[in-house]
C-alpha cells in the first residue's frame, strides 16, 4: 500500500452560480513533491487551493489531505488538519490591525489549549522572520511594508508552525522580476531545507521552471541548477482550463504538448 498523498483530488467538481469552477478534477501530490498549477485568470487555480484547505466544499468528488478525506467533514474537525498546512494568499491577507510579529505569531498564539510562552513565540517568530530576511520589520504594521515585503511576511506566517504542506497562491503576482525571484527563492528554500510539499499556483511558467530545475543553495543563499531536471524532477505541472485539467505531467511532457491552449498559454507566459 502506497503512503497517503499529501494532497489528492478525486473527481472533484465545484459549481458557482451554475458555472463550473472545477470540473471533475483528479490529481495527487506525494509528500515532498512540488506541484505547479498554471492557468489563465479565472481557470480555477485559486479555487483549487481553497478546496485543498477545505475553505470551499466541492459539489462532487473527494479531497484527501494527508490521507484524510476533508470534503465531507465539519469545519471544527478541519481546523486541526489545517494547522498542518501553510497558505500564502494572493494579496498576502495579513491582519492589518496586527503588527508583523503578531501576524507571524498568530498560528502559534491562536491554537487550542495553552499557547506557548511569549518568549517561545517571540523566538519562533524571529526565526521565521530571519528565514524570510525581514527581522527588521518585527514591530511594523503591514501598511508600512511594500508588496514584496508583505508577501515575505505572509510566507513567514505560513511556515512558522512547521507545516508539512505549503500552498502558494500566485506568490509573485504583481511584483517586479527581482522581488519575484526573491519570493521564489524563499519558496525553494522552504521546500529544500524543510522538505515540505509545495503547491504553487502561478501564471508565470518561469516560476515552474525554477521549481523543476533549481535547488536552494544554503552556502550562497541563492539558487543552483538542481541535479534532477525535467522528467526526473519531483515537480509536476497541472494546467487548468475552465476548471478542467488540460495537462498533467512533468516539465518535458509539458514542453512537448501540441494542444493550442497549452501552447498559447506557455508561450504567452514565457514572454511575460
Amino acid at each position, binding site marked *: 500500500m502506497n503512503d497517503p498523498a499529501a494532497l489528492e483530488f478525486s473527481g472533484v467538481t465545484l459549481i458557482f452560480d451554475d458555472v463550473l469552477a472545477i470540473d471533475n478534477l483528479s490529481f495527487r501530490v506525494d509528500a515532498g513533491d512540488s506541484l505547479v498549477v498554471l492557468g489563465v485568470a479565472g481557470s480555477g487555480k485559486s479555487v483549487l487551493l481553497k478546496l485543498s484547505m477545505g475553505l470551499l466544499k466541492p459539489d462532487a468528488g473527494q479531497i484527501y489531505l494527508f490521507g484524510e478525506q476533508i470534503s465531507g467533514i465539519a469545519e471544527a474537525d478541519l481546523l486541526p488538519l489545517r494547522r498542518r498546512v501553510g497558505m500564502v494568499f494572493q494579496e498576502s491577507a495579513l*491582519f492589518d490591525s496586527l503588527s508583523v510579529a503578531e501576524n507571524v505569531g498568530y498560528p502559534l498564539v491562536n491554537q487550542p489549549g495553552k499557547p506557548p510562552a511569549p518568549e517561545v513565540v517571540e523566538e519562533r517568530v524571529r526565526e521565521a522572520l530571519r528565514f524570510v530576511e525581514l527581522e527588521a520589520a518585527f514591530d511594523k504594521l503591514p501598511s508600512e511594508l511594500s508588496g514584496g515585503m508583505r508577501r515575505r511576511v505572509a510566507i513567514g*506566517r505560513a511556515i512558522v508552525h512547521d507545516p508539512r504542506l505549503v500552498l502558494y497562491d500566485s506568490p509573485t503576482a504583481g511584483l517586479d522580476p527581482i522581488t519575484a525571484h526573491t519570493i521564489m527563492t524563499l519558496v525553494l528554500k522552504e521546500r529544500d531545507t524543510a522538505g515540505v510539499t509545495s503547491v504553487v499556483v502561478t501564471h508565470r511558467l518561469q516560476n515552474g521552471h525554477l521549481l523543476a530545475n533549481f535547488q536552494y543553495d544554503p552556502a550562497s543563499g541563492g539558487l543552483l541548477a538542481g541535479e534532477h531536471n525535467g522528467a526526473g524532477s519531483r515537480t509536476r505541472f497541472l494546467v487548468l482550463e475552465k476548471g478542467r485539467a488540460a495537462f498533467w505531467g512533468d516539465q518535458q511532457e509539458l514542453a512537448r504538448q501540441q494542444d493550442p491552449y497549452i501552447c498559447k498559454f506557455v508561450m504567452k507566459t514565457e514572454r511575460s
Partner: protein
Amino acid sequence: MKKIVLTVQEFMLLSGRAITNLFRGPHYWADVMLQMDIIGIGSLPIVVLTGFFSGAVLALQMSDTLSTFGATAQTGTMVSLSLVKEMGPVLTSLMMAGRNSAGMASELGSMAVTEQIDAMRALGTDPVKKLVTPRLLATVVTMPLLTIISDFVGIFGGFVVSFFFIKLSAAQYWASSYRKLDFGDVAEGLTKPFVFAFVVALVGCYCGVSTRGGTQGVGRSTTQAVVAASILIIFLDFLIAKAFVGG
C-alpha cells in the same frame, strides 16, 4: 425570493453557531475585553448625550401637555416611565446599531474582501469564535448596562428641565419619578436591550462576514447592517411591549 430565504438561513446558522460558542471553548477573552471597551466604553458618550437630551425634551413636551390637565407635577412620572420602558432601550439600541452594527459590518467586511477571514480559517482558527462570539458577548453584557446609564441620565435631564424651566421642586420630581416605577417596568426596560443586543451584534457581524464585492461591497454591507438592525429593533420592540402589556 430564493435569495431572501438563503440569507435568512445563513443568518440563522451564523447566529446559532455564535450563541453555541458562548458555551464552548476556546474562548478569546482578550478579544471579549477589547470589544467591551470598544462597544461599551466607546458608546458611552453618545448614549449619555442621547439619554440626557431625550429626558430633557420629554420633560418639556410632557409638562406642556400635562399643564392643560393641571398635572405638571406628574412630569417626573411620565419621563421615568417613558424612558425606562421605551425610549431608553430603543434609543440606546438604535444608537448602538448606528455606531456598532455599522462598525462591525465595515470591519469584518474589510477583512472578508481582503481574504483575512479565509486566512484566519486557513490558520486553524474558527472566525465565528474569534470574531463574532466576542462581539456578541461584549454587546450582550454592555448594552443593558448602557441602557441603565441612559435611563438614569435621561431622568436627570428631565429633572434639569423640570427644576430650571418648569419650576418643579427636586423632591417633587424625584418622588414622582421613582414612585410609579414597578418591577414590571424595569423588567421590560431591561429585557429589551438584552434582546436588541443580539440584533445589533449578529446583524452587524453577519453583514460583515457575508460581504462580497470589494470596497463598494463594504459600504453596502455597512448600510444594510444599520437599516436591518434598526428595523428589527423597532419590530422586536413592538413584540416585547405587546408581551409585557398583554391583551
